[in-house]
């Protein structure tokens, strides 16, 4: 579904991604972890061609997207919903207008139908009474959820989440995790999740990939991941009090 073939990306004189190859299959919940600045957001941006590799290919559904025409790129992008690290809501629009934006831009739906769809998402994400507020008046967690509502309003096949739970309280984080899992189970949506929270990664992930200094140091199932021999992985695990024999609850891919 998503395949990176020897992708190298240099930014500001630094090699951020160094000859990276991996594949995300359909229906997976693919988790990317790594220290701050490891290139996780850059990796996500390559999937939707917000960035183009210096060398190597990004392949979506068998199609190399590096040099696509505008129309073809548009087609590819309709497969994706993206939750940005900074939520990226339009500040001058209300929550409802933000979520409704893709519908208003790309469909001929009537206003009533649009509002009904938006309302459905608002309730699903527990944003019931926030509809008329503006992004600046929302907490960080609420902004994330509005961003998520906007990302999924067009029913994408693949959803990219850039740190969906960072800065959220544990209960809300858990709700978002459940949502990611739920969307896979009910709609078969493929997810790529960037997170710092290993507990959540282990719980929801089908695979976990760790980036470090431009390389993939591990790409494995949660079970294999915690037994990884790699030192960076081990110190990353230890930093979050997870040991090799550690137990955790799995909610995603039992």
């Amino acid at each position: 579904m998503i395949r990176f073939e020897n992708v190298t990306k240099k930014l500001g004189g630094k090699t951020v991604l160094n000859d990276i190859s991996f594949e995300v299959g359909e229906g997976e919940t693919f988790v990317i972890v790594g220290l701050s600045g490891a290139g996780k957001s850059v990796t996500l941006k390559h999937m939707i061609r917000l960035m183009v590799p210096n060398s190597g290919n990004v392949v979506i559904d068998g199609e190399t997207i590096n040099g696509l025409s505008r129309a073809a790129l548009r087609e590819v992008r309709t497969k994706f919903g993206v939750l940005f690290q900074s939520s990226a809501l339009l500040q001058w629009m209300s929550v409802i207008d933000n979520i409704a934006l893709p519908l208003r831009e790309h469909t001929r739906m009537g206003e009533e139908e649009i509002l009904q769809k938006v309302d459905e998402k608002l309730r699903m994400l527990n944003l019931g009474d926030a509809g008329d507020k503006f992004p600046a008046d929302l907490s960080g967690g609420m902004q994330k959820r509005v961003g998520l509502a906007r990302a999924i309003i067009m029913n994408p096949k693949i959803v990219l989440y850039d740190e969906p739970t960072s800065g959220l309280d544990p209960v809300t984080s858990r709700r978002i995790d459940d949502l990611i899992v739920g969307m896979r189970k009910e709609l078969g949506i493929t997810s790529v999740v960037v997170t710092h929270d290993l507990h959540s990664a282990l719980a929801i992930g089908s695979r976990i990939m760790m980036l470090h200094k431009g390389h993939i140091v591990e790409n494995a199932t949660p079970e294999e991941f915690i037994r990884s021999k790699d030192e960076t992985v081990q110190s990353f695990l230890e930093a979050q009090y997870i040991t090799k024999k550690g137990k955790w609850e799995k909610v995603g891919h039992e």
Partner: protein
Amino acid sequence: MKDSGRSAARMGSQVLQLMQNTGHAMFMLLEAIYFTRYVFSKRSRGETLVQLYITGIKSLAVITVVAMFTGMILALQTGLELRRYGQEVYIGSAVAVSMIREMGPFMTGLIIAASVGSAIAAQIGTMTVSEEIAALEVMSINPNRFLVMPRLVALVVMMPILTVYTNILGIFGGGVVGATQLGVSMQAYMDNATQFATNKDLYVGLLKAAIFGAVIATVACHQGFMTTEGAVGVGKATRRSVIISFLVILVLGYMITRMFYI
């Protein structure tokens, strides 16, 4: 030797950068012009109206003061000179012609670049660094249609209207100075003004105003899109957008006058 080689190379790359940026800005402008065919579509007309309102209303107070004083200064300057030849009554045409042809569009352009242009650069700059522009692209919403086109239309439409306002106030301000300081009656002043200012002056002035509007929109939006490095970058983009707009307005103003009057 080595040093001069290096600085020549640096200058070369700066020139290249400048050309590349100008190219980007031109491409953005052309695409926004193409998208003006959607200006009355349901998706765009709301935003266009908002931008028209912001552009028209935001700077009205400053424009009023600046326009009055520009006319007053012009009248006083030329009036004192003309008085030596006993020709004070000609301040009417002096003020009217230079307001309509040059000072009206020029002053309005500077004020709008500093107020509306800087606000556009800051807004789009903020959107760029907070990934809002990237989000638009992922949603296949072209920022040149969604953001640039309504601002371009608003500025190209409002600049001539505001310039007419500036001209009227400037000419009126000149008349007040004439009547109170130079002993030229309002009647004589206006007669003289309307006698010498031609329709061509008016058209050229308004054409200038519209072009300045396009310049301000293009520079401000482009600087906004080019913003990097967070909040600091937004400040830089805002400042650059004002400086570049000023420079382009000055140079283009001169060139347009040259084109029509020489």
